[in-house]
């Protein structure tokens, strides 16, 4: 049996309050309280804290129901927007059916759905629509005709024929002595191009002038100077010009050949023959590159060439390109197996 002391009296007090003490323990507790009367007050205070029993019933149905009443607006909007799941939607419909007070509000919500007025439409849709570009019938025929004309004009273009270029080689070569001079009479009207004068007049070696009556015969390995002909002081005879044959490069090592082209362009030569040039005037194209492509004649010709290509089933191209550096336009014609280009004004 337990003994009550100052160190364990709390457990006796608690057992007493909960009715767990035996009769003998009750007697021991009474003796203890007589011995220590100040602890009786402590026991009485502990007794006050015993809570009376309380009957609490929890509303389980409330937990199970959806709060349609408190959040009616939210559920109405959710229902309108289709955000309710199937169970909620059914429960909401039942709630509305069962509660007339809420039905009117719900009807107002239902009426807030905006329905488009299909009678309203854009007045003239044709002004919004785009139409494909119509190419007039005459453009087709004209295009082909222009391209044919262009083709022949390129073919007969004098620029294609007079395109002399002089090539000077920087490779040191051994040159044979000039051949024996043959007298050849050169008349003023002979077609010696200015370019040839310019390039060959510098060579003044091997020239002999012999007076024959009023004339002077010039024996030379070069073509005579322009003024020698223009002044008509001489009947000039020049040798047949045979370029000295090149035997072989002096240096057996591989030489890098730098070809130096004449800076006199063929167009400058042609320009000298034009009427404008005779009047002391000249013409230069000022068309920028982009606009150059858009010239009407070129556009028509291009269209014609394209159509010819379609008919022939071949790829035929005509291109006009403006070179801003040389200020010249160049027309190129390309097809399978043939292609040429020329400068055009």
């Amino acid at each position: 049996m337990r003994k009550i002391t100052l160190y364990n009296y709390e457990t006796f007090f608690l057992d007493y309050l909960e009715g767990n003490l035996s009769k003998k323990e009750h007697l021991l507790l009474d003796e203890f309280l007589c011995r220590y009367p100040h602890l009786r007050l402590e026991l009485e205070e502990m007794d006050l804290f015993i809570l009376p029993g309380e009957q609490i019933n929890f509303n389980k149905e409330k937990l199970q129901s959806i709060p349609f009443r408190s959040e009616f607006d939210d559920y109405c909007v959710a229902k309108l927007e289709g955000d309710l799941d199937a169970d909620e939607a059914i429960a909401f419909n039942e709630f509305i059916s069962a509660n007339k007070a809420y039905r009117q509000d719900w009807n107002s919500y239902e009426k807030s759905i905006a329905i488009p007025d299909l009678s309203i439409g854009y007045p003239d849709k044709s002004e919004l629509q785009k139409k494909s570009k119509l190419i007039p019938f005459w453009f087709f025929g004209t295009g082909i005709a222009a391209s044919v004309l262009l083709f022949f004009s390129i073919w007969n273009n004098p620029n294609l024929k007079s395109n002399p270029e002089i090539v000077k080689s920087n490779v040191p070569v051994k040159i044979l002595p000039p051949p024996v001079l043959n007298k050849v009479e050169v008349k003023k009207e002979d077609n010696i191009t200015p370019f040839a004068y310019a390039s060959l007049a510098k060579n003044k070696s091997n020239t002999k002038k012999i007076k024959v009556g009023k004339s002077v015969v010039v024996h030379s390995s070069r073509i005579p100077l322009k003024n020698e002909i223009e002044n008509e002081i001489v009947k000039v005879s020049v040798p047949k010009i045979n370029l000295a044959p090149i035997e072989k490069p002096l240096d057996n090592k591989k030489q890098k050949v730098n070809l130096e082209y004449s800076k006199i362009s063929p167009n400058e030569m042609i320009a000298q023959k034009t009427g404008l040039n005779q009047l002391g005037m000249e013409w230069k194209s000022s068309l920028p590159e982009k606009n150059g492509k858009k010239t009407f004649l070129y556009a028509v010709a291009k269209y014609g060439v394209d159509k010819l290509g379609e008919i022939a089933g071949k790829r035929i191209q005509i291109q006009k390109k403006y070179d801003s550096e040389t200020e010249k336009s160049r027309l190129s014609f390309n097809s399978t197996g043939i292609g040429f280009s020329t400068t055009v004004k």
Partner: protein
Amino acid sequence: MNLAQYNRVVSLYADAVFRFILKNLKNEDKAKDVVQDSFEKLWRNKDQINPDKVKSYLFTTAYHTMIDMIRKEKRIEDFDRVEECDYSHVDQYCDIKEILNIALDRLSEIQRSVILLRDYEGYTYQEIAKITDLSESQVKVYIYRARKHLKKFIGKIETIV
């Protein structure tokens, strides 16, 4: 998108875009201008636009063009503010459609736009968010508030009538 597809888009959506803008601007000429601008932008960018998203692109462009126009005219109001309804003069309206139109007019620009996109075109919250440059939750909030205001207005009018 080629020419034929573009013209088909015009046939399909020009009316819908026009209705949407007209409902917001209440001015036929301005609505036409907005629609024309939108289709011009569509034509200019036709090569970059996914054909499946043309409708969305059109509405987005039209919406932003409309907002720009409103801003230019300094008619824009605080999108968050909804005017309190003045019910005093509306007792002559009996037709619910007319009442709804009045109610829609009383919504803020943004609320009206989201409601029209939702009801007229059936766009999802996400799509509306994309068109109007709002977040999805903002769209929901605007729709919620708009619905409440519409319901309040309609309910009140019906009570009066």
